[in-house]
């Protein structure tokens, strides 16, 4: 089906809010924000990749990929192990780690991607927990770092050492922030394009009714596998970056409460499959999570879970994306009334 392409003006008007937000976000360090909050935003960028990974596949197909912790954890551990056994620093090990994590997760998940039903979701939840057991118990704990994890130098630390001591940490914080921001922007644009392309609609068709999608000529296994590969690439990138920026690599990266629940909350609260909603929600929830620390301390995890339950039951279609649509419409109406020359 062919739709008439909107005019350049209309397209520009449509993208103005998103482009403004991206530019404004990139300028945050110019406002003098440094230290803890810049670290929080860097972490939010990494979690944004996980959120996009979850939303692109699970938000469209409704096959819950609870194994993003496994994929992210695998690439984080490969980064750490490449340093421990081959002396490879994160600057060089990030890309091989992403490739290994994708290959590993594809081999394990392929049988469950082929069949319908809940097998994929349960298997994806099972994997990270098994990996935690393997890493923390004998004899593998001797090779995989056990509870203490694997130490490694952080990304770009070798360059930072050439600077005067006072400038090292600000340099690293800024570099990490801009690197993760750039990657997140690229990933967000690609995910958005993909989610609303023909391929994205095929994923959504599978989510609505897999049998019907198959009957209408979609090779569902192939589409699911391709969707899974793209989603895994994002999760593996997040894991490798997390390892490189926040060493040492410990089993914390594999525990779903740490690396699955925040993106899952963002996807549900943001609006499944909408990409923009979950992405915005990711930043709101991570900043809110840090602000809540003083108020409710460790109870914040429980607050997250309760929010998740209430949202899933009362607002399964999400909240943030609808607010975004209303805002965009209001801005577009304002801009349309301006005469362009």
């Amino acid at each position, binding site marked *: 089906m062919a739709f008439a392409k909107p005019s350049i003006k209309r397209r520009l008007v449509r993208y103005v809010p998103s482009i403004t937000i991206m530019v404004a976000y990139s300028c945050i360090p110019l406002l003098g924000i440094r230290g803890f909050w810049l670290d929080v935003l860097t972490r939010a960028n990494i979690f944004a990749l996980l959120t996009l990974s979850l939303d692109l596949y*699970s938000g469209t197909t*409704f096959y*819950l990929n*609870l194994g993003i912790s496994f994929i992210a954890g695998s690439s984080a551990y490969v980064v750490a192990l490449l340093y421990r056994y081959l002396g490879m620093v994160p600057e060089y090990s990030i890309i091989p780690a992403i490739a290994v994590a994708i290959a590993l997760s594809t081999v*394990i998940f392929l*049988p*469950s991607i*082929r*069949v*319908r039903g*809940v*097998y994929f*979701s*349960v*298997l994806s*939840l*099972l*994997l990270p*927990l*098994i990996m935690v*057991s*393997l890493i*923390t*118990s*004998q*004899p*593998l*704990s001797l090779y995989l770092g056990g509870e203490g994890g694997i130490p490694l130098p952080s990304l770009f630390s070798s360059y930072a050492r050439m600077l005067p001591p006072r400038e090292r940490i600000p340099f690293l914080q800024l570099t990490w922030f801009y690197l993760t921001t750039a990657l997140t922007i690229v990933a967000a644009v690609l995910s958005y394009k993909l989610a609303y392309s023909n391929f994205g609609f095929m994923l959504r068709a599978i989510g609505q009714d897999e049998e019907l999608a198959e009957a209408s000529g979609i090779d569902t296994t192939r589409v699911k596998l391709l969707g899974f590969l793209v989603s895994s690439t994002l999760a593996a990138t997040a894991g490798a970056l997390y390892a490189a920026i926040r060493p040492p690599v410990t089993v914390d990266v594999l525990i*779903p*409460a740490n690396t699955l*629940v925040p993106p*899952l909350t963002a996807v*549900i609260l943001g609006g499944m499959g909408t990409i923009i909603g979950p992405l915005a929600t990711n930043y709101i929830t991570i900043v809110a999570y840090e602000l809540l620390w003083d108020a409710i301390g*460790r*109870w914040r*995890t*429980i607050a997250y*879970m*309760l929010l*998740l*339950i209430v949202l*899933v*039951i009362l607002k*399964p279609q999400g909240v943030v994306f609808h607010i975004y649509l209303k805002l965009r419409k209001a801005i577009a109406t304002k801009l349309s009334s301006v005469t362009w020359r």
Partner: protein
Amino acid sequence: MGELEYILLFGLFHSVTYLVFSLGFSLVFGVARLPNLAYGSLYVLSSYLAHALSSYAGLEMYWAVPTAVLLAGAVSLVVGELVVKPALKMPVSVFITTMAVAYIVEEVLNMLMGLRPVVLSLYPGTSSILGIAVSNHWLLVVGVCILMVISLTIFLLRTSTGRAIRAVAESWEESMRLGIDPLRVLRVTFLVTGIYAGVTGVLLAPLKAMTPSAGWSPLFAAFAIVVLGGVGNLIGTVVASVIYGLLEQAVVYFLGGGIARVVPLLIVVLTLVVRPQGLLGRGE
């Protein structure tokens, strides 16, 4: 020969406990059409409740244990009513809500009781079976588990509620045409399976260290057993429990407890590759 006897004996003991736990899991899976990820938390919760009732409320163990089991059943009922029933329209929701409940239970126990494992007192004494010294508590566990399997089978086959559960597990639409209220059946199923998870928890608490996260391991074992045996297949579940129990004990004996955690993963992946409908399950 000693090794083989040990693996056989403890493999069968574990199989019986897995069978009871998996039957409850399979029943909810059949009726709600989705796995209840909070099922493992009921197993942990019952042992923590029994510990709390005996240590802090001063109840005798023979009162604390049944009270804890009934409370686990009540919690399961509440989970079914408040968290599962409203989310049934969207299958993916049940998955998320029950997982969230599991993490809430884990976090609350972590904060209230800490990471130190809870161990309930053992039924005293040892007996010798095949020349192997076995704790009498294991014999009690096996006896109670066998009784529970028999009573569940009679309940499902001989009572009208049991028949209604089987009908709903077969088809929600058809059962409604027969005048069965599937939501009432769901309620009963959650209560019964909560009690089954609770009994397994208090029975195994003296033998295994119960930590707040201890519920995931039996949950995955139950999932592997249900996948291997075929969803909703009683005989398949029995056969799969025996295979699982023996395989797990063999791996524990020869390779250690850490590696044994891979057993459910191995079973699920191999079953999905070779026979996705399970050993005795029907094809799509």
